[in-house]
């Protein structure tokens, strides 16, 4: 698989990663070589093999839907770059 510059730009957009234009050709080369490695998977037929998501095939535990954590809103918001009036601030999302 060979990725072109436009493929890399699209993937970077989907992943919300701003790349410098100068770096894109190198990323295209490296990602293509990783995908070539990955495509060695296609040398085996796996049609009759079921996918394995959990190494021990255990299902995840469920718990009662009750509050178990204490409220640490202020401690957590203290980690943010921009908080005002108890709200996380970001650039305007919706036009008025």
């Amino acid at each position, binding site marked *: 698989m060979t990725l072109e510059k436009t493929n890399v730009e699209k*993937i970077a957009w*989907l992943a919300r990663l701003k790349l410098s234009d100068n770096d894109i050709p190198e990323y295209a080369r490296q990602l293509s070589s990783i995908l070539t490695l990955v495509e060695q998977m296609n040398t085996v037929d796996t049609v009759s093999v079921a996918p*394995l*998501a959990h*190494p*021990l095939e255990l299902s995840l535990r469920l718990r009662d839907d009750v509050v178990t954590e204490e409220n640490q809103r202020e401690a*957590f918001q203290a980690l943010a770059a*921009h908080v005002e009036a108890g709200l996380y601030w970001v650039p305007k999302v919706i036009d008025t």
Partner: protein
Amino acid sequence: MYKSSLIQLSRALDRREISSVELTEIYLDRIARMDAEYNSFITVTGELARTQAGEADQRRQAGSNGPLTGIPIAHKDIFCTRGVKTSCGSRMLDNFIAPYDATVVEKLRRAGMVTLGKTNMDEFAMGSSNETSFYGPVRNPWDLERVPGGSSGGSACAVAARLAPAATGTDTGGSIRQPAALCGLTGIKPTYGTVSRYGMIAYASSLDQGGPIARSAEDAALLLTAMAGFDARDSTSAERPAEDYSAHLDDSIEGLRIGLPREFFGEGLDSQVGAVIESAVKQFERLGAIVSEISLPNTRLSIPAYYVVAPAECSSNLARFDGVRYGYRCDDALDINDLFSRSRGEGFGAEVKRRIMIGTYALSAGYYDAYYLKAQRIRRLIRDDFHRAFEQADVILGPTSPTVAFKLGEKTGDPVTMYLSDIYTISINLAGLPALSLPAGFVAHLPVGLQLIGDHFGEARLLNAAHRYQQATDWHARAPEGCN
């Protein structure tokens, strides 16, 4: 005193030959004098260590101590540590002061261990040489021109250089075992679900597992006993009774069936590393083990499958870093997408970006079946190989890494070359098995790691076999020049 094992330190503290405060000062002093050369610590927590050491001494006086009370330890900077910077080796978290303790940190703190600091690592645990760290590479104490391995490179370096008697690590594709091998140490990656992942910054959640890096199997067993156990806060934690991993260390290994996978001894294995492993196999035979050849035919597919599963999970896990709630935030964002994209673009390094993009691509519309589902099918083939092998063998033995420590910069130009160095460790994570690496000899002045792989929850047997080997050999007792 810094030459002592955990067991010896525990006895010395018991007999009041030294206090925890004195012991802690010895290590803090070594770190202050020596670590500029190695770069194994991102943060040294001197004040916290002195406070915890004082508390440990009080506990020992009151008789309310355990074997680890008062013994210092270093934590990989992937484990959240309350009130302490937890960077995960990334610019993204350079300003992140963890608001809570990871379960591993909390358990070892409750056992009375003293936190010396947070160790350097590949950024978000993505790397095999510790060269992707935002804080610069770590040097191997056996040869300063060479890498310590990764991603737990700082932990391995600190223990090898006797800057800490032991350290925590994490292993997603070999990140405990490979640095342990390259630095002449004993490190164990437990069965998936054995050690809680709560507060351990996630890379690939179906593969990540924490474990100890120490100087012997005996020390690793003591630490693993304190680290492991069911944790309701980790939804994948195994619901099993607690286990004492030290209880069977001294058992005989007479009759132990050891399988040598032929795929681990073929093309790609350095012949001198191979010779060291073969002589270790003879030592195991002298101890009564019965050795036979086995096959893990899908080993060659483990790296391709891993580089779908791990990036896919990482692209999802690392989506949380958005410049809003914590971590790096870019200046002067034009709009919300500019805030996300530039915070992530500026906050993550190149290897993390590559893996996020591979994962994003593999999970994007139209590609899911060809990549992610295909990789999960291969994952079953790999696990089934091990299932069949464990019908013939109790323990599987091979090299941990195809070569000894390589030079700094040698593999940074081509990601795929770096990935291939994990050929003997990655399949174990895909299958969720326990495996440990222990030192088995040298090629020139560089340590060689031997890997023992067990069936699910077979940690005690691995530690037993490793301990018996270490009773008969002294490779694990060697220290780098200037550190002994």
